[in-house]
Structure formats: C-alpha cells, structure tokens
C-alpha cells in the first residue's frame, strides 16, 4: 500500500511539477530525459537507478521518454534546456554515434558529463546450433567467399557501427542487415534468418543464458565477470576495444555544486552496493567514472566511433 501511495504521489508530482523554493539543490523534481522509448537499455538503466537517486537527492526524479531519430530528438531537447541541474540526460554511446554519423547539430562537447555508471561489451553471437564454433571459423568463412549475414539493431545505431568496426578489424566481409531493434535482430538469429548478430551484452543476456545464441567474441579489453567464458577480440588477435556505456549528462554549463551533489549521490549508491545486483541482473556491470577521467574516456570513445563511422560511409 505504501508503494502504491508513493506511486500516486509520484504521479501527482508529475502533474503539479515542483515549484517550491529553497536554498539548496535540489529544491524541486528533476527531469531525466531518456532519448529512447520506455523499455530499452537506457530506460531500464535509469528506472532501476530512480528510487536510489530519489533517496539520495531527496527529490523526485521524473523520467521523460523522448524517443525519435535514434535518440536525436531527446538529446536535442536536453542540449537546448537550461543548465540548472533540473533537466538531465541519460547518456550513452548513441550520442557519440549520432555525432560521428554527422546527423545532428550538437556534439558531445555541448554536454557536461556527470558520471558514467554502467557498461557492457558489444558481443558478436551466432545461433546455438550454428556451424561456426568460434570467431576464427566465422572469419575464415567470411574471407573465403561465404556471405555472412549479420543482424544489427537499427541503421546507423552504435551496434551497426560496432559491426562495421568488427568487419574491418577482422578483415571479414559482412552482409549487415539492420533490424528495427535488438529484439528483432535476436529473433532473426534464433530463427536462423541471419548467421550472426552484433548487439550489446545486456540485450543478448537471456538469449546467451538459455543457449539459444552462442557468443563468439566480445569487445572489452579483458574478459569480464558477466561473460567469463566469452573470449575478447584482443586475445584472439584483433585490435578492437569498444564498450557500451551508460551514464548521466547535463547541458553544458552545469553549476559545479550541482555536479558535486550528483557525483556524491552516485558514489554513495555505488558504495551501498544495492545497485550492483540490479545492474548484474540487467547484464551490465557497474564501472563508475567521474570528472577528468570521464571526460578523457568520452573523448576517446568519440574518436573510436568517428573512425568506425568513417568506415561505414565508405
């Protein structure tokens, strides 16, 4: 019942909106823009974090799904809003992908990044009873004249770019087939309509666990606890390191004390450890990064994406 009441209060808060005034941030509910529809990786990440953040910040976090344009619509809205800490963005690789493809009027430098919270690898997977037992088999087949059909989520998505990067670094030629979303690509691979899929590890998690799909390689620098049996590209001799990260960003010019408040809140949540299990259940791992380290990480990821997107345009 208490839970029900809190929902109703939340609903009421969404309608009324915060209007109270006080000295310390936050004094009213905070809008969190999720530039994708409800149910995606970005959305679930923030919704799982929502109750913990609300406890830390003492104010309501209102999640606003603004899908469209592969995230472009929501991100444009975020970049155009006031940098007062009351409109934030659930950020991910999608921003860097859009920037790299040159389809949007903003850059990642138009944002202040508060924290990276979780990450997951890109994984290339084949059907559970596929003839390709490992990455080498697949690459050999692809380089010796067999057309390998590879499903990805969405044309120009970060998974699409990751698939192109994999093709380039392994020298394989892929017939990349874009599906509307990750679940469509997974069902195509399960049904044998494509030979392989390239997606984020979280999306593939249940398919891999059930054995319907088999992971051949993943894009971390080192093996991860979430997929201990899956070899990296690096250890199979291909120079490819990419991660899917999710975190929180704000329009450029965020006041320093607001950023500090948020970093403290997230650090506290990470220290409490309760989010770790949820993140694990979602197939991701908590890997927090803040401040200058974070900025360097974002710049480097943007560089990798730009390079891969250049290959895509060729």
């Amino acid at each position: 019942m208490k839970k029900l009441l809190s929902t109703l209060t939340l609903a009421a808060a969404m309608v009324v909106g915060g209007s109270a005034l006080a000295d310390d941030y936050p004094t009213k509910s905070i809008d969190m823009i999720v530039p994708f529809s409800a149910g995606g990786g970005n959305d679930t990440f923030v919704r799982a974090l929502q109750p913990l953040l609300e406890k830390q910040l003492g104010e309501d976090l209102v999640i606003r799904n603004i899908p469209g344009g592969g995230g472009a619509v929501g991100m444009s809205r975020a970049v155009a809003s006031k940098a007062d800490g009351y409109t934030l963005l659930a950020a991910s690789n999608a921003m860097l992908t859009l920037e790299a493809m040159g389809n949007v009027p903003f850059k990642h430098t138009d944002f202040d990044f508060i924290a990276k919270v979780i990450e997951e690898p890109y994984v290339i997977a084949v059907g559970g009873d596929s003839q390709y037992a490992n990455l080498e088999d697949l690459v050999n087949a692809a380089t010796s004249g067999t057309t390998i059909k590879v499903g990805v989520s969405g044309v120009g998505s970060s998974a699409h770019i990751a698939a192109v990067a994999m093709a380039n670094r392994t020298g394989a030629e892929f017939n990349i087939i874009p599906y509307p979303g990750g679940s469509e690509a997974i069902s195509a691979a399960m049904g044998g309509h494509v030979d392989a899929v390239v997606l984020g590890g979280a999306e593939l998690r249940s398919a891999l666990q059930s054995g319907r799909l088999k992971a051949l390689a993943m894009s971390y620098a080192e093996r991860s606890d979430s997929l201990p049996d899956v070899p990296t590209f690096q250890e199979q001799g291909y120079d490819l390191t990419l991660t899917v990260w999710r975190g929180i960003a704000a329009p450029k010019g965020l006041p320093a004390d607001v950023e500090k408040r948020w970093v403290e809140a997230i650090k506290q949540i990470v220290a409490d450890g309760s989010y770790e299990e949820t993140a694990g259940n979602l197939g991701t791992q908590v890997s927090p990064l803040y401040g200058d380290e974070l900025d360097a990480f974002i710049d480097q990821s943007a560089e990798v994406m730009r390079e891969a997107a250049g290959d895509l345009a060729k």
Partner: protein
Amino acid sequence: MISGYLDGLGMVLQVGTLLAIAGGTLLGIIMGALPGLTSAMAIALLLPVTFGMPPVMGIGMLLGALCGAGASGSIPAILLNIPGTPSSVATTFDGFPMAQKGEAGRALGLAIVASFFGGVASMVILSLLAPPIAEFALRFGAAEYFSLSIFGLVIIASVAGKSLLKGLIAGLIGFFASTIGTDPITGVGRFTFDQLSLLTGINLLPALIGLFAVSQVLKDAFEYDPHQRLEESTHRIDIARPRFLETLRHWKAVVAGILSGSIVGPIPGAGGSIASLVAYDQTRRFSKSPEKFGTGHAPGIVSVESANNALLGGALIPTLALGIPGEAATAVLLGGLMIQGITPGPLLFDDQSGTVYGIFLAYLVANVFMLLIMCLGIKLFIRVLMVPRKQLLSAILVFCFIGVYGVDGDVFNLYLMLGFGVLGYFLNRYDFGTAPVILGLILGPIAESNLRRGLQAFQGDWTPFFTRPISLTFLVIAVGLLALTLWQNYRGNRRTESNASS
C-alpha cells in the same frame, strides 16, 4: 507441474500480492480508457514501485496494468468512437453503432465479458503451449513478415466499408505516410524536411488520435445544433451490466478472437496491431449475416474484444519463452522481469521454483480483477454520455492534447494530430473511412522493410518469398481472400441490380 502451481498459488494468494495486482489493474484501466495514454506508460510508471517487491507480486502488478489497459481501451471506442490504442480500432466498427442505438451499456457489457474470456483463455494457452508457439514465431523471417503484411493489407478490403476502391485509396494514403522518416535499410531521410521529429517517421499515436478522435470531434462540432435539446437521450443505464450469457451465445466469435489473438499475437512486432482486425474479419466472413456487421452487431464486438485480451497473453509468449518483446508494453515488462532477476527463456518454463506458475496465476487473477472493476464501473462509464455534448467535445479534445503531448513531450506531434484530424474528417465525410489509413500506416513499414531486408539477405533473389512454406501460405490465403471479397462484391452487386430491375 501440479506442485509448481501450488507453490505459485501460495505466492499469489497473499494480501499484499492481491492488492498489488488490483492496484496495477485499476491504473491500467484508467490509463487505457483515456485516449492517448497507453499500457506501456502505465507499466513504465509502475516499474520503479515494483523493485522492492517479491517477483510474483511485482510482475503481477505490471501484468495487472497490461490486462486492465487492454480491456478498457474499448470504453472510449464504444462510447465516443475513439479507440485509445490501435488494437481497439476494430471495436469502434460495431461498438459505436450499438451505442448510437442507445445500447452503450449492452456493448460495454459484451466487451467486458469477451475481454475476460479472451484473457483467461490466452493465459491457459500461454501456460500450456508457450514453448511450441514461440518456436513457431521464430520461423518468421523477412519473407514471412512481408507475406503476413500482405495478408493484413487484404483485410483493408474488409474494413473498407462501402467501397473497396475508396478503402484501398485510404489504405494507400496510410502506406504513403509510412514512408516518411529514416529509410529502414540505408538510413537516408525521406520527406523529413530537416524536422527532427520526423526522423523516426510518423508516430502512430498522434495519427490514431487525430484520425479517430479529432475527426470525430470536428464532425460532432459541425453537426452540433445548439437548439436541439438533450431530452431524447435514449441511453438506458439499466441495460449496463456484464453480458455473460449473450457473449457465450456468440461463442464462435469468442473462439475466433482467442485463436487469432493467440496465433497472430505472438509474432513480434506485427501481431499485436492486426490480431483484432483478423478476428473481426474472420468472424464476419464466416457469419451467416455478414451484412449486419458495422451496424452494431454483437459478434463484431465480441470477436474484437476477446482477441484484444487474448493477444496480450499471446504477446507474453515470446516475451517469456524467448525474451523477445513484441511491442512497447511487453518491452517495459521485460525490463521489469530482468530487474527482478527472472531471465526469460525456455529454461523459465522448466524452472522448479514455481515463480513462472505464480506469474501465470497472477495474470489470471489480474483478469478477474479486471472483470470485477469493470463491472463495478460500467454504470459510471456510461454516464460520460450524459455529459452535454459541448462540454464533452471540449473535454475529449483536452485529453487528446494531453495524451499525445504526454507520449514524448513533442509539440510537433500535436500539429501532426490536428493534421490527421482534418484528413480524417474529410475521409469520413466522403466515405473513405479512417481505419484503412491506420492499417496502411502500421503495415507499410513491415511490408517495405521486410521486402528489402529479405532481398538483401537473399542477395536479390525474390523466389524465397514464394518458396518458403509459411510465406507461401500467407500469400495464397491473401489471394484467396481477395478473390472471395471480389466475388462477394460482384454477387452483391448482381443481386441489388436484379432486385432493382424486378
């Protein structure tokens, strides 16, 4: 299995769990009944609340919202001719005419009971047959999706109303509108005019609300006669009660609804929107009195509404058995499952813990709560029609704006809604109908992207579209139905001609 159900029963029959399911169902009913608010929003809103709950309690609450919203979409469809979701479009065909005859209470009573039967039957199918049905759904590749959408397009002929040609023209308008946005294969923008909001194409909800709700408001506003008094309000409240026996009398329509909801519903991405239309079409085709459909005929309502709730169970099949959600609502639900640590997949059904049986039973309980709440509310819903026309029209318009803006807070969608409203007004005025436009808008992208995806996968060879068994079956059925429709039209015309000459 029996012990699994007993364990599950133990998890469901707890005061907290029952309250959570009832609360979820109530919220779902409210959100489903308001045009523009959807079950996906209801589930997303409830998601953070469920984190602290045990799995069956949390998932039960989310399933309640899914079930409630699935059933209550019929309320505005029947009372106001405004479908809240694409799947209740077909409810307007017979529900609204029946309401216009003053029998809104009867229509609601039928819809509620049919929803309940559909929901319960789909839960039984889900619990017994989920793994094989999921395997069947997996066999749908690009060729199969393409042929399914062609089959769906033939249904346009059925919902086209008086003129097949006009229906096809309206369908093609929808088809054209569906080409707007980013090209699904190459990523090139088409007809987007540098408008960010158009990058992902025309959003279905503003189009739906515009075509049905705004156009209806426009029509009513033009026809509104301030001198006409309201005393002739024929709506009788005493007939507003659940119609168990009458629904059972139309058992064929119930079965058609359950079958199409359970078979078409599980196909990810395509099933949900067309299952209820398939049910309506099949019920009418095999009826002894097809001419009564569209005039407030009970089997029309019963087939659509039983399909509507059966397809929710259908959509849960790939979600639970494969981890593949078919549309927005089950996608959010999947997030809820994973956060609870429940990994969907074939293993879930072999799980000994009883959790999965608890989930099935929770869905059953949600259907019971849906029935109870709707039965208690039915006399209340009907009073909407007692509201004077001018207040009602303005209130509807307000809800349309709130609902469409609420989807993603994009003002552009409001203009889109108004544009489609004007289009819908003229389409209705000249007997083109608005349902084919929505059908074209839904099926267009499925047909186009899968044709091209298939050609890319088959490297330019188009023969697999005709040689793959499932694909061929759909194409043959589509051609057969089209021939049947043309033949029926021809015979109908001959008969009217001979009647006229004699």
